[in-house]
């Protein structure tokens, strides 16, 4: 394979993994915009969603055939994740709303531990294959470049979801309400919005988005409870670099991180495959020193 083709392939693969990080980063920004919290359990909830999708899929496939069964699994995963996200907000995070943010963060960490433990208990700590329309190794060639069908599917799926989310936020009354609650919950309540319901919808949407990312990763690398620990770190790095209040920034940063770490892992010998994960943090150090509010973030002024 010539050098140019290798480069293009690395970029394409990077964009695919990057869109996974982007989905998770977007979920984190969504929750942060609505509640001012960082949900460290976002990755864990995505894994739980993927496990549910696998279970529903495996149950449905003998009855209705593979294609319909897999689809049922994914739809069930998204719906279940939405419900779980909403319930977590209502019965767990609501309690910490408006209080000390550190306490709320610890609550999401406890939730991450609980979800990981439950997944391990129900589905064991062994790798489980996720049933999907095609095998993860499938690829096609354009000239010299081999492109994974998985990479392409992932990239397009996440891109479409982001488009839908953007349309929801900009073009619908629900989206307007969500933005109003995020901006100022008290005045949103005064102007007649159901703040509690909207918060639940925000968490539900974030969890549903995460579960799609979870399913896509599970297809590629099989399911295991700690599957998203590293992805969560990438997503958080993307959020820091892109700015907590900027969905576009988070997505661009996630894609950039993934492409860059892919290139660094191949072209810099001492980075290699195992230390790729250090790349975003070198970036973070540089960004924090040059622009503490993130590349796309706004600087906030605090008064006593």
């Amino acid at each position, binding site marked *: 394979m010539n050098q140019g083709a290798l480069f293009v392939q690395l970029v394409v693969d990077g964009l695919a993994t990057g869109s996974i990080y982007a989905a998770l980063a977007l979920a984190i920004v969504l929750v942060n915009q609505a509640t001012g919290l960082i949900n460290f359990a976002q990755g864990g909830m995505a894994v739980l969603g993927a496990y549910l999708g696998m279970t529903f899929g495996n149950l449905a496939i003998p009855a209705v055939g593979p294609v319909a069964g897999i689809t049922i699994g994914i739809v069930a995963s998204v719906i279940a994740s939405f419900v779980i996200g909403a319930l977590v907000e209502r019965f767990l995070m609501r309690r910490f709303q408006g209080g000390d943010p550190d306490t709320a963060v610890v*609550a999401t960490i406890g939730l991450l*531990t609980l979800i990981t433990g439950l997944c391990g208990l129900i589905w064991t700590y062994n790798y489980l294959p996720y049933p999907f329309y095609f095998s993860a190794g499938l690829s096609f060639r354009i000239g010299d470049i081999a492109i994974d069908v998985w990479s392409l599917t992932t990239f397009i799926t996440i891109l479409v979801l982001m488009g839908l989310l953007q349309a929801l936020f900009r073009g619908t009354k629900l989206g307007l309400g969500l933005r109003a609650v995020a901006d100022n919950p008290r005045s949103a309540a005064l102007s007649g919005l159901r703040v509690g319901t909207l918060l639940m919808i925000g968490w539900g949407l974030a969890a549903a988005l995460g579960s799609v990312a979870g399913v896509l990763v599970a297809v590629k690398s099989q399911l295991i409870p700690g599957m998203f620990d590293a992805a969560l*770190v990438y997503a958080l790095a993307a959020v820091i670099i892109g700015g907590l209040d900027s969905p576009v920034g988070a997505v661009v940063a996630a894609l950039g991180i993934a492409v860059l770490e892919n290139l660094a892992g191949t072209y810099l010998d001492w980075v290699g495959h195992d230390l790729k994960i*250090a790349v975003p943090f070198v970036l973070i150090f540089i960004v924090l020193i040059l622009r503490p509010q993130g590349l796309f973030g706004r600087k906030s002024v605090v008064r006593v």
Partner: protein
Amino acid sequence: MSAVTAFLANRWVRLGVFGVVLVVLGVLPLIADPFTNQTIARIAVFAVAVLGLNIVMGYTGQVSLGQIFFVGVGAYCAAIPIRAWWGTDVYTWSIVIGLVLAIVVPGVIGLLVALAAARLRGLAIAMITIALPIIGVPLAKRFSDLTGGNEGLSVRRLPYGEGDAAGVGNPFAAPAGSGLANDQWQYYLVLLIAIIVFVLAYFLVRGRYGRAFAIVRENEAVAASMGISPYRYKVLSFTIAAVFGGIAGFLYIVALQYTSSETLSFGHSIELVIATIVGGAGSIVGSILGGAFYVLIPQITNALQLSDYTLVAQGVIILLVLFLLPGGLASLPRTIRRLARRRRGAHSVDAGDPAGSASVTTQHQVPTSKERNT
């Protein structure tokens, strides 16, 4: 009840209680079995790590998810020189060099990380420190010549300085003339260093620095207006936490004589955060309880052959503590006293307590979401 409270509040009584605890801890290993001694020594190891995390989280109010990284680095820093020099002319000094390195190296790394992380407010430290264990594990595996990679480093059987029958020895075996068993010797060594660290921490959080930390935790803008640089004190508290983590790593080697990349894994880091909050944020006693929680929960689930439930148990307990006992286990006596007072119908329910204010906010919000319709 109030008589008991007043009695316990007396300075001399507290010192007396402290003395009694010291005597019990001093006599216990002579009568307890080795397993109990090792368990208590491990609790002391992780109590020091939790204490460090408490300086950052409890006293300065910054969430750090990377404390276990410093424990792991400290353990490597202790094990590597001991393995390199044990059996040469400087063999006893190799332990001292290990201790010094276990303090300096994590401290410097902690300082460098904090210099970048503390620039952002709020949750940035949490979001950056989460990377430490996640990068640390592959890093440890990469430098496997130094760290032993997956197999780890053991200091249990090293070429012996004077050379015994087998020609190998344990640097942390009890000295010949002491009349102690190995587990008793290690217990005393761990406990001695742990107590020194706890006493230092006690004076730190009650002194000038402790007050500065508290102001930074309460309100950074106020701190800045008083001439207390939030940035500088956040960096300081983070560095101290890293140093305590490193010391805990050294003690880990004393107590277990083994470490590997598993020691600094992400899961353990999360468990350490949970242990800190369950024990009691911003409490010295809470740090000890946190260490006990960290060590005993897996031990109990293992003994009951329910080790699959360890994570679930930890998750459930931390959420229950956050809901019912926000001050952690250390605040249990205070909470019981308050409940007893409330039952007697006294009007002294203070509004400032965390549990009370949390329930007030929730009650506040439910009506706002229900009473309005779009």
